[in-house]
């Protein structure tokens, strides 16, 4: 709840990640690590300026105090841009996303998992905690551009994912596309007439964030198990893994299905809620967002087919050992999260209603009017 601490730890996150990629990464690790660091660091510098401005004006760095601070619209807009750059890089939103595929491909499995499951979430968390409640009027002004960027992420990045030949890059791009639903759900609330629809979108975006944490972690951990055995990320060097590793393949199928948002898995809930809510805002936003049903299925299942189905073509695949007991435990835990959240999302949702309602009230408030 203290802005200085927030900033401090925000930047502190970078260091272990930087070292993680730089030391244990793949062949091109230096480039990726530096790119990762500079990208995210440059984004954050302006946020510091914004925080200092807010701190000086409210006389404290207590975050809820920022919520009550009346701000004129132009100032709000500047603050929005400053915050947005920091958060957008982290989420990452199109077009400031290009560090992610490099960072993911070079990072070791553990690094990728932390990156996808945790690091990306702080960006969205920042939007929910800072941008919307602190500068609500500016957020409303920028809502349309944000929605358009989200749609570009969903559709274009989804298409880009189809063109990937590197398994980790594919998962990375699919992460960006999925995070598009988070930002879409968050910003669509400004286009909605009544607050219930806004809650639907907002909670959908939130749930998508949580679900993506598990789903992308599952995708990366699962792939890590393959990579440990095969030492290659190249999709074309696989093929027929389902024959060699049947148990593993069954789990991976479940994770792939979360990725294509099949009802009953966690990936469905957020996308469903965001699409339903965005249609109430604008027909075409929902239509474009729904294209993910086709695009997401295409890149995920095409990958699944190339890696798991078909005859075994490489001796390396033939020699694969199925998952060990420890690996099984990990996969089972992830599956439980994926299914539990998919079948009973209300277990989670009922606990966030109160805070979501509060944040939505703040986010939809008009600060400009308060200045009078």
């Amino acid at each position, binding site marked *: 709840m203290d802005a200085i601490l927030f900033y401090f730890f925000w930047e502190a996150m970078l260091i272990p990640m930087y070292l993680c990629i730089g030391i244990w990464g793949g062949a091109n690790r230096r480039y990726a690590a530096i*790119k990762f660091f*500079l*990208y995210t660091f440059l984004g954050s510098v302006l946020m510091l300026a914004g925080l200092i401005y807010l701190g000086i004006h409210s006389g404290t760095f207590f975050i809820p105090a920022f919520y009550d601070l009346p701000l004129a619209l132009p100032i709000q807009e500047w603050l929005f841009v400053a915050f947005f750059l920091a958060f957008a890089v982290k989420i990452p939103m199109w*077009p400031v996303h*290009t560090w992610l595929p490099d960072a993911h491909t070079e990072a070791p499995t553990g690094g990728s998992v932390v990156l996808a499951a945790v690091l990306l979430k702080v960006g969205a968390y920042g939007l929910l905690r800072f941008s919307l409640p602190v500068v609500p009027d500016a957020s409303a002004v920028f809502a349309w551009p944000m929605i358009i960027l989200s749609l570009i992420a969903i559709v274009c*990045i989804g*298409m*880009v*994912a*189809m*063109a*990937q030949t590197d398994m980790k890059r594919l998962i990375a791009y699919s992460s960006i596309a999925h995070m598009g639903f988070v930002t879409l759900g968050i910003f669509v609330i400004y286009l909605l007439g009544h*607050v*219930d629809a806004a*809650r*639907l979108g907002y*909670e959908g975006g939130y749930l998508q964030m949580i679900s993506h944490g598990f789903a992308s972690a599952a995708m990366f951990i699962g792939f890590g198990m393959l990579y440990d055995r095969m030492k290659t990320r190249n999709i074309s060097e696989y093929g*027929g893994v*389902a*024959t060699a590793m*049947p*148990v593993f393949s069954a789990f991976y*199928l479940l994770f792939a*299905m979360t990725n294509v948002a*099949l*009802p*009953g898995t966690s990936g469905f*809930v957020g996308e*469903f*809620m965001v*699409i*339903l809510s965005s*249609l*109430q805002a604008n*027909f*075409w936003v*929902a*239509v474009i967002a*729904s*294209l993910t*049903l*086709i695009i997401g*299925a*295409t890149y995920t*299942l*095409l990958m699944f*087919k190339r890696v*798991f*189905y*078909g*005859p*075994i073509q490489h001796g390396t695949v033939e020699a694969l050992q199925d998952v060990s007991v420890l690996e099984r435990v990990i996969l089972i835990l992830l599956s439980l999260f994926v299914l539990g959240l998919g*079948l*009973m*999302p*209300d277990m989670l*949702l*009922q606990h966030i*209603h109160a805070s979501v*309602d509060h944040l939505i009230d703040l986010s939809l408030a008009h600060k400009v009017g308060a200045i009078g």
Partner: protein
Amino acid sequence: MGIHEITLLTIFAPLLGAIVTGLACRVWSNQAAHSMTIGGVAVGLMSALYLAHWTLIAHPGFSDNWTLYTWASYGSSHFDVGFLLDGLSAIMLVVVTFVSLLVHIYSIGYMEEDPGYPRFFAYMSLFTFAMLCLVLGNNFLVLFFGWEGVGLVSYLLIGFWFKKDSAAEGSLKAFLVNRVGDFGFLIGIALLLSYVGSLDYAEVFTKAPALANLTISVIPGVVWSLPTLICLMLFIGAMGKSAQVPLHVWLPESMEGPTPISALIHAATMVTAGVYMVARMSPLFELSDVALTTVMLIGSTGALMMGLVGIVQHDIKRVIAYSTMSQLGYMMAANGVSAYALGIFHLTTHAFFKALLFLAAGSVIMGMHHDQDLRHMGNLKKYMPWTYAVFLIGTLALVALPPFAGYFSKDAIIEAVFLSTLPGAKYAYVCLVLGAFVTSFYSFRALFLAFHGKERMSTHQRDSLHESPWVVRVPLLLLALPSVIIGAVLVEPMVYSHAGFLSHGEITVLPNHDVMTTLHHHFDGVWHLVEIAPQGPAFWATLLGLGFAWIAYIKAPALPNQLAASCKVCYQVLVQKFGFDWFYQEVIVKFADSTSQVLYKRLDMGLIDGGIVNGSGRMVAYVAGLMRRLQTGYLYHYALIMLLGLVAMVTWFMLRHYHIG
């Protein structure tokens, strides 16, 4: 146990079987696997029969709409998981569980030597569960869950032999084409939520009449009626699932899966989900003549077109697959002219005789050592008399000769379309009558090629030809029986009775669409229906088809080749399946492929990453390089720059002073 508990038992008994078998599939014996799953589905069938008896016979008009738990909530609204038991879902329940149970039993014989035996049974039970959710859901969420769930299992089962590239390819295609349908379906659901505020059927249908006059402008300047848009979107979903033109291309590829699956999923149950859905949504579809006309036209076009393609297929399973698409077209056409009860009735009869045909074809395939080519068969009736008998019954039911099951449903559909006043109904009628001829022709063609005529198989195949074991024959006989009688038994309660299964508000028909009332007037007992068969054109079209097939494949076997040679264009059009596959492959897939390449290489890697990101990196390096040159370390360089700076500053001050002064 109350009705709720029995409903849950129906749904979850197959799921339990699937989960236990799925988890144990690597340690259990084949016998344990099939006992577990068959047990689950048998419990499902028992309770489904009980529910059907309760709903349809003991308490006609019974309807039970309840919520199991809250799936998600937001603000003052919530989405629930709940179920609706009424006449419509009761009929579907029995069809699904009955066919599923028989296919399970049949698979004991058919899959005997397959290493994936337990997995196969687990998938089939999982499918049964998803399908039951689909038909029992009381809201769009559960419907969509079942809808995508059956799609997933269909994907898994088409790709069951995933080592084969064609199977992997076919499963992918099935999933993606279905996803195109689901895309429309989801938009339809979202539209309903935004205008009705709920996903529950009961609430949607109560508020539906209020939507009738609403309009929506999705493209500026073009005003659409809201019900039309909603129904068309929902119907896109039905087109995907029920393999309607032009989203039908996945169904022939689905034949890569094991034959029992083709019978259960791709003939009897899953592909009829779209027909069920449109009938369930009748209160919505009734509001839009445009949507109904679309349903009718697409259905009847498919009925004829797919039948025509069926004529040139050589694979016995593909002939039946095209026949399925054609029959689904009939069901949709029935829905289109608001004869929903007929659509469901044909769905029911079709489920039995088409499952029978597929399973009989499976028996042939087993006998032929997994050779499915009709050109390699011939005179099989000598070797497989049982299979021949049931295949013949299935064929007679399919071509709708009285008194077999298909007659009662199909003939009435043709009649209903004839009576319809929708624009284009005449065209639909012609399609359906021609379709009857085509159906008869390709069905008897397959029958004659496989079971009659010369023996064209290799000597090796002939020596090992055998009739299938009892575990295969019993399900065939159990399906043959309803294929004969179910039409005569059910026609009155399902279609022609005012106190029938579907006349208690399960479906809604507005007075101006009511073709069924006229049909009711003609009805004078079941036997009378059989008597008046020769009065309709469909009966003669069928006989004509039979005659043509007899001439072409028994009397003068050289004729088909001559015909194909004399009209190369027609033949090629049929062999190319009217070019849909070509279009999707060459235009859509290539377009998506190249777009994704361009977006990746040019936009993402080229412009954004290469240009802007690394470009700014290079820019920093470049500017730094320039700056470095300044730091030369030579005193006279610094002195010169100081001097220049001094001159510039003095000049600037002077000029400014001059101007101001």
